[in-house]
């Protein structure tokens, strides 16, 4: 990004900077968005720099200090196997936000939750564009299928998918994507229904453009605003879903530092007198999801105000 800016002629600089500046001014104008951004950035940075922020590894066990409360050695305390909770928390954030573990040796950048949403976006947008732009029987078939999917309580869909294919990070991504498709497709379809009546679409059709070109090059970019805000909320849902799956024992297999499964294990020791292992991951997931929602809400409020 920085490179492309340098290669541009000097004269375009001010306007480009101004454009970027005005984008961010929307953010800065809303106090809720700022608070949300702050929380989200906190977790993203903690996840990226996790190894620098703690001397412990998330799987290192200390049998002498099990279920210990916060102390100087372990700032948030330890869990039932004596693993440092702060270390597990920030390494858990990594899986959610910055890396997707495929197997023991291979991982992809960008977190599990975000991959799930991206995959859902690709499939959902394609289906939505198809049924919104092409209409006819394709529309009818796609919409009936999506109706059937929408009839499922979301959690049930997650449960039977994961129960059928087994639990791993990749399968969690798949499940998040599948569950997200109907909502995204409906949104994109409604936007496409609106945009297809515009003059520039008529012009493209007269030029004899391929329908796929019209769908992806003419319609999709012009529908991006609502899609981006929706995607941001969806990342929130995806994190929510990852936590819930982990809590139900359908998430990442142990000993991964998964927030949901940390709570599931930790809650067994609450009434035994050590609530810490359940409190921190609950707080972490709550704060991250609330942060994302504040950010999305703030953005939506501000963009609506100037429309």
């Amino acid at each position, binding site marked *: 990004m920085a490179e492309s800016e340098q290669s541009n002629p000097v004269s375009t600089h001010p306007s480009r900077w101004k454009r970027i500046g005005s984008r961010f001014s929307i953010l800065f104008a809303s106090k809720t968005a700022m608070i949300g951004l702050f929380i989200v950035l906190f977790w993203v940075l903690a996840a990226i720099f996790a190894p620098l922020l703690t001397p412990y590894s998330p799987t290192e066990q200390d049998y002498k200090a099990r279920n210990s409360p916060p102390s100087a050695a372990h700032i948030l305390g330890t869990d039932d196997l004596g693993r440092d909770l702060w270390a597990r928390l920030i390494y858990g954030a990594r899986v959610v936000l910055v890396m997707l573990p495929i197997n023991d040796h291979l991982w992809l950048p960008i977190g599990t939750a975000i991959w799930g949403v991206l995959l859902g976006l690709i499939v959902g947008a394609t289906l939505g564009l198809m049924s919104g732009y092409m209409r006819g029987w394709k529309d009818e078939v796609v919409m009936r299928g999506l109706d059937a999917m*929408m009839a499922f309580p979301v959690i*049930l869909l997650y449960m039977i998918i994961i129960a059928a294919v087994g639990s791993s990070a990749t399968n969690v991504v798949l499940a998040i994507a599948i569950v997200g498709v109907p909502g995204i497709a409906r949104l994109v379809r409604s936007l496409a229904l609106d945009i297809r009546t515009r003059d520039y679409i008529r012009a493209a059709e007269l030029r004899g453009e391929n329908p796929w070109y019209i769908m992806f090059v003419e319609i999709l970019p012009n529908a991006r605003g609502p899609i981006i805000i929706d995607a941001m909320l969806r990342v929130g849902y995806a994190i929510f879903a990852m936590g819930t799956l982990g809590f139900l024992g359908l998430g990442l297999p142990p000993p991964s530092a998964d927030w949901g499964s940390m*709570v599931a294990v930790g809650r067994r020791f609450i009434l035994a007198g050590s609530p810490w292992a359940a409190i921190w991951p609950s707080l972490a997931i709550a704060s991250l999801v609330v942060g994302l929602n504040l950010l999305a809400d703030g953005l939506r409020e501000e963009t609506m105000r100037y429309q």
Partner: protein
Amino acid sequence: MTKFILRRLLLMLLTMFLVSVAVFAITSAAPGNVARNVLGIQITPEQEASFLAQNGLDKPMVERYISWLAGTDWRAAAKVGLGLKRIKTTDGFTEWWAVEEDGTMIRWVLEGEDLIARRQQADGSVVEQPDNGRWQIKDAKSEAARLQAYRAELQNDPQIAEADRQVILKPLDRILEILNSTDSQLSSPEALLSALAEPEGVLQALRDGEAAKQKQDLKNAGEEFAGKTALIQAIVVAQRLSDPAANELKQSDLQFMASQLSRASAKIKPVDPGLADQLQQAYESLKAGDAQAAKARMVEATPALIALTGNLGALADGLQNGDYLLAATVLRDLSDPAKMPFDEAQMAVLPEILGAAGKALQATQADLGDALLQAVENLQAGQTDEARKAFLQAADQLAAKGLVIARTDAAGKALVGRTFWGIDTQNHAVRWETGSGKEVWVFIQGTGWKAYSGGPAEYIPLQKGLVRGDPGVSLRTGRPVADLLYIRLRNSLILAGIAFVIVMPLALVLGVIAGLKEGKSSDRILSIGGMMFSVTPEFATGIFLIIIFSFWLKLVPGATVFGEKAPWSRPDMLVLPVLTLALIELGYVMRITRASMVDVMKAPYIRTAFLKGLPYRRVVMKHGIRNALMAPITVIMLHVNWLLGGIVVVEVIFGYPGLGSYLLDSALFKDFNAIEAGAMILVLVAVITQLLADITYTFINPRIRYS
């Protein structure tokens, strides 16, 4: 209006159909895993195949879908030729019976080659009777081919005494003649049966009723004897390592074999240190995972091992495989001074091994076992000659038994194969077959695996089907899913209902207040607070509430324990689950109401009302709220999906015995009948509420009603 509702109903049916296909397709994606999940990972491929067949999982997907939806009993009834009836036992299990013309209920079991009918009497007792008249002849042509092949085999079977062979061959030839005859009089099944009656009667007379049981007993004794004797296990390990399949042995197998070698090595050490050392080396190679090196060692060691054990490994083999000639030869060799000197080394190990063999046999074959144990006593007392006599006696007895068993087997195989569709005692319609010689593994709940030979060839698991109210039997409990499902659904509806009743008025009031004070600080607090509650995952909210109310304040219990009782018997345990559910719903409904209220208050007719000089109260109550509540009410109904999701998690957190936790347990166990039924119920609840929402909306909103 009617047209609209009809259209919606049709759409709902279509949706439910698609949903049922989806639920079925997803849960049946991996049937192989089901067997492993239920029976454990150590089952053999044959057992897995049997399990899949008995649960109907080996059938094509479409057939399984239809069976699941519409049942299998009608198909099975056509095959059996009698009506079928499902009854419920007092302890909650289902039983399927066929009903005869006079109304008696009947099921069948196969004992050996005999079909036994079990008729239930009026007083509930069951009477067993042989019912071989129901057998029907399998295809005559293929049976003729099979018997022709068997005739050749019989000629060369060394296990059968020559006299027996001749006696069997005669009726066999007659049967072949009848089957191959082109006489049109024999083309009807009845005529064929009556023609076969005479030669088959001869064969039946040759069969010994006890033989099948004796064969099984000898086999079990052989297995027990081999399994308990370290040295024989060492020989078995050597055989397994020499087998070409040794390369596919898993690490856990190798470790298991290593431990057996280690035991054998310890046994031999005082007798033959050199041999013990070889075994020890093989043990270490296996431990390190090197099967090749272990094999080389064991090939060297095997002859010495066999000599040391007096070839008793072959005795175990012979008993297990039905090769009684071999087994008897081993015993006879023991009585021969030239082959068995009973030297010092042998005397150190043999009595123990023979003792094990004797004990294994004694349980069912008292004469054989006693003879062997007597021989051991003699050996230990130094009376070698007495012992040799006892061995000879045992060998003769075994050979005699072997002859009877072989004759019975051969006569059985020479019979024309029969087939019969009936109902077994495990709720399947089964096609039984004789003469196929196939071994079938049957898993009986609570008993474990049992091998039956020459029995069931095809299964139809009996169920009425989902649409007729019978989603099948739970793999976890063996009881019908429908019974438990009803109780669980009731519990869940109670939980959701209480939460709903508490949340709705509260959320609507708070939402209206926030909407009226748009932008003010009270609105800000309400909206952000509501948002935080609605986006925080249920499990996090639940944990916070448990920590606050039950860990710190100790006000209410943090878990629900109802046992068999109904949830309303302990209201204090319902507080936290209801609160968790309520908080999540509260935020959502409040946000919708607020947005709707804000919209309405900006509408021109509200401004007009103010300009008319109406008091604020009146404007809000009469013009504002009525219009503002329209949107939330439908949204709330559409939100039921979300609420159901929340219920699953809340039930798991608090251990509440509802539908959600039942579904999760079933999903983790891959109890497919339970998942599918539970999922369909949950979807049905969601779809019906959505339909109700649509219909209510048309009633509430006059603009739609009159358009």
